[in-house]
């Protein structure tokens, strides 16, 4: 044998591995199958599941969580944590409702988006400047933002009664507006992640930050940008949320954080960074939307909810982890 083909033994084994690498799609296949199976089971138990009204319920719930989850996923892919999701949504909900009732919806949206940028910049700057893990930094910020929400609202809810409900309508009388916003966000960021330089760089930074830095990339700036984009998305989600239910509580957004993490991880985003596709994230979001809806439709004892959701997360993560590497 000449020396080329000898070394190729190792290479052949590796080529087999690169075909296996395409199996990261396996996560998405699994999720798709799970969605179909779950849908079928629920439909059998309660045919109302397939009603148009229910479909809209799912779509609405999914839209709000989904927009936030995509924002969080950007940060996760870049290799950082963002625990401010829930608190930021709460603050922005309160601010939006307050501004909308006092100044008008249009200006409220603009103001709140600007503030979203400010919050995102604060997050990004602190995470990149303070030499501590983003987990603890965003945790501290969570506390601050929650406090701001409480202070501004004085612990009370803010009502949007009588204000033009921007996202409550339906386009062409059929598709709920929030869904349209969600779909736009999905498409935009699917393109960003896959086809833009920024997207590639996010994966690079999350994959090996040293490599990115030594290749001349301004890692800090990209991270700040990522946190800012995430904050903008949380803001949009908050706006949609408030428009939908008409009131804002200083804790409105809190419940979305854990679900966003769960949806992202189930969707294939690695907590260590560097991995995750929009398709997977989208499916992960749908999975949770379905589960939540299924639990209600099937009249499952509310006290079983946590057990079910937790078990499903474990199952999903165990199956996709099988054969893969940790973290």
């Amino acid at each position, binding site marked *: 044998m000449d020396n080329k083909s000898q070394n190729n033994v190792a290479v052949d084994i590796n080529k087999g591995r690169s075909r296996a690498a395409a199996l990261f799609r396996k996560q998405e296949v699994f999720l798709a199958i799970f969605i179909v199976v779950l849908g079928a089971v629920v439909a059998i138990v309660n045919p109302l599941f397939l009603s148009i009204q229910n479909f809209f319920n799912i779509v609405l719930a999914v839209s709000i969580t989904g927009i936030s989850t995509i924002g969080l996923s950007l940060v996760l892919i870049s290799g950082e944590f963002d625990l401010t999701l829930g608190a930021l949504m709460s603050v922005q909900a309160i601010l939006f409702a307050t501004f909308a009732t006092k100044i008008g919806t249009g200006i409220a949206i603009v103001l709140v988006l600007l503030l979203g940028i400010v919050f995102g910049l604060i997050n990004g700057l602190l995470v990149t400047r303070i030499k501590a893990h983003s987990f603890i930094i965003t945790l*501290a910020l969570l506390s601050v933002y929650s406090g701001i929400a409480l202070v501004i609202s004085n612990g009370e809810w803010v009502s949007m009664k009588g204000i033009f409900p921007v996202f409550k309508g339906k386009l062409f009388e059929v598709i709920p507006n929030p869904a349209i916003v969600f779909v736009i966000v999905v498409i935009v960021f699917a393109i960003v992640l896959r086809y833009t330089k920024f997207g590639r760089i996010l994966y690079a930074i999350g994959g090996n930050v040293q490599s990115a830095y030594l290749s001349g990339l301004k890692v800090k700036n990209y991270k700040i940008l990522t946190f800012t984009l995430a904050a903008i998305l949380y803001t949009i989600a908050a706006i949609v949320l408030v428009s939908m239910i008409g009131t804002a509580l200083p804790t409105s957004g809190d419940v979305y954080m854990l679900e966003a993490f769960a949806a992202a991880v189930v969707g294939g985003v690695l907590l260590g960074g560097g991995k995750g596709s929009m398709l997977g994230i989208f499916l992960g979001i749908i999975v949770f939307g379905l589960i939540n809806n299924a639990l209600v439709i099937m009249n499952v004892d509310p006290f079983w909810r946590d057990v079910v959701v937790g078990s499903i997360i474990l199952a999903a*993560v165990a199956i996709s982890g099988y054969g893969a590497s940790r973290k």
Partner: protein
Amino acid sequence: MSNKEQYASVANTSMTRTSKLSRFFNQKTVLVLIMIVVAIFVTIINQNFLSLKNLFNIVSAVSVIGIATIGASMVLITGEFDLTLGAVFSVTAWLMALLTPTYGATVGISAALVAGLVFGIVTGLVVTNVKANSFIITLALGSVYTGIGLLLNRGAYSSMSGFFTIFKEKIFGIIPYSIIALLVVLIAAALVFKYTKFGRAIFLTGSNQHAAYLSGIKVKFYKVTVFAIAGVLYGLSSIVLVSQISVAMNYIGASYTLAAIAAAVLGGVVLGGGKGDVLGIFLGVLLFGLVSNAMILMNIKPYWRGIVIGVIILIALSVSGYLESKE
């Protein structure tokens, strides 16, 4: 000169000047300074802060979260997350509420400890055998445990006044038993960290798991054991709390867990694993307790408290991060 002498002489010249200063201004000193500053502030506004009664109040409150934080810290030191803290804490409380009225305090307390142990072992086994980040695994498990707890008490409050208030009582009428409990746990932990094979093994595992494995450390065994001990400690802290306030509260959950992790990180526990010490952890927890108490005494409006804590954490992190980078 031999190599060693050469090295030593170089080391002596440049080391003496810088390190004495930086050894003084380390993370723990920062925590102590912040506490002193806060203490001064409070005392100016409300002299009661320095009263013996109040100081004992602080330490009593601290003992609850302190015991739990030691458990969480051990897990962090081995390089894993444990987000089941809040859940185990709540569930053991409800378990006590369920059993004590009928079977007495001893059974109730034992049940809490056993439950903590069982939860811990289960968590440990799942984390070591499922190839995924312990953040998401313990997040999901926490959800499952909470669900189990909710099923137990159906969301109701239960009053247990009079059943066991042992930790409310004082030895010699002065020092509350809760403080004794905390001290015992702290001293035990410190001894284990420094003087036992087990302690050494968990630090090495957290520092480099693969190298530890190749050096003969039974990584899986130590991890499961650490989670188990943590579970017992969470149960213990729940016992201490319940006996102080005599009511098994509803849902504490995520915020409690995150607060414990924050205290640990402030105290010098590194989220990647392999570093941390009991004194630091105690100071971190004490800082939280002291600031909480101070805010009450200074009549800071409840809604502002989250902001204050968040800002203080950020300041503490910035300062110690800055000092570390000077080294």
